[in-house]
């Protein structure tokens, strides 16, 4: 936000940058060959549902669009922070990315682009380790989020795995350089 905007007390809601999503399939190949992490076939978009009928209508249209022509079923859930997760299932990663992109575009076109928080594509290794590739819309960058499997309710991150993934993907995707922005998404679908 510029100086002039803050002086006038105006926030220009940051619009989402969507195109980097299509880099995920290439990154998935690297993750599989180098770290044994395979896509789980899930993909999720996390956003803040706006009040009012316009948003409900937009959301219904999006779900219908993805499910049309034998597309994957879409699940919708609301987490404890009041953010909505739209989860799509598709074993073909590039189809999945197209679906995620479609959700984002639809919301953006209707003027709800500022409500998008992140997209998430979870990966799993054979030994049970899981890592989610999170796309931050407002930054246009990715970061890994790996919850360490502990007892229920315990919130620990597998930082080593996260940093490994970051280094692996450094040449494939725009990875968030500021570690402060590596927001934890506990209880996200697929993790």
């Amino acid at each position, binding site marked *: 936000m510029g100086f002039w905007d803050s002086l006038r007390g105006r*926030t220009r809601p940051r619009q989402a940058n969507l195109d980097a999503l299509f880099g995920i399939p290439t990154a998935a190949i690297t993750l599989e060959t180098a770290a044994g992490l395979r896509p789980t076939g899930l993909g999720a978009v996390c956003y803040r549902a706006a009040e009012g009928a316009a948003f409900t209508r937009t959301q219904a249209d999006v779900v219908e669009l993805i499910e049309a022509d034998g597309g994957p079923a879409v699940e919708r859930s609301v987490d404890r*922070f009041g*953010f909505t997760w739209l989860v799509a299932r598709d074993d073909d990663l590039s189809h999945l990315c197209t679906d995620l992109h479609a959700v984002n575009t639809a919301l953006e076109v209707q003027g709800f682009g500022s409500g998008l928080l992140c997209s998430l594509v979870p990966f799993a290794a054979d030994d049970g380790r899981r890592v989610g590739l999170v796309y931050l819309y407002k930054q246009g960058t990715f970061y890994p989020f790996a919850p360490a499997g502990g007892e229920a309710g315990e919130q620990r991150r597998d930082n080593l795995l996260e940093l490994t993934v970051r280094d692996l993907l450094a040449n494939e995707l725009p990875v968030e350089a500021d570690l402060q922005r590596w*927001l934890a998404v506990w209880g996200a679908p697929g993790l």
Partner: protein
Amino acid sequence: MAHSRFIRDTGLTVRMTTVMFLLGGLFVALIVALMAMMPVQYAPIIGLVGLGIAFWQWWSSDKVAMRAMRAREVTPEEAPELHGMVDRLCAMADMPKPRVGVADSDIPNAFATGRSPERAVVCVTTGILKKLDAEELEGVLAHELSHVAHRDVLVMTVASSAGIVAGMLTRGAQWGMMGRSRSSGGIAGIVLVVVVSLVVYAISFVLLRLLSRYRELCADRSGAYLTQKPGALASALQKITGEMAAIPTKDLRKASTMNAFFIAPAVRGISLSTITATHPSLEQRLEQLARIQAELARPVD
């Protein structure tokens, strides 16, 4: 292609810019008047001290405010819910995460302070945590984060510097009148300085309150757009202000120094007229939120 439902509130911006311009003009007028009345030699020094005080207020705003409210910073381990909420709001707004504080007080309130977004702290009272549900609390936090993003502490400090300098001059001149009056010309000059300072102080007081109300409305707007739920902020405001009005004013006196940074004023505005209120009336704020809600619900294209 992508458009936003963020309506422009040109009227508010114009009114606010005008007020800021007038405050700036007032400061210039004060300086010019002082230059013209040079007999008081120490006036520039007092003016500089006044500016120094304003600067110090801004520089140490986070520490002073936290101490005044007896608030303490909380770690993500101590308050995971609160931190999680702030985390997500900051990711949505694309701003650095401020520190989070909790003040042990039953008055339901929240404030944000700090000299820059990087050094900001957002603080809530235990009262507000008990009173509001998660959605409403998020609305309040978004309002406070908007204050941080708008650099309201800086804007209000700069805006108040004319008033601070004028106040210092009045004091200084009174002191000078008692101690150092040697010639009658000096007395006249000092009286003139007192009069000018008082006038400047009075005007800047009213303008400052006006500016403060506009900044609050701006923060309401930005906060509502951040959470996409103007209704949640509206119901939070109703709860807070309703509760605040029910608490005896006597207990709230201690909080009066902090009013500029609160989400709702802690002292009831009965003795103060609407002109001197630091916050807009509840009706004004609710009306604006209702308009935003209508805009969000506008049918799809």
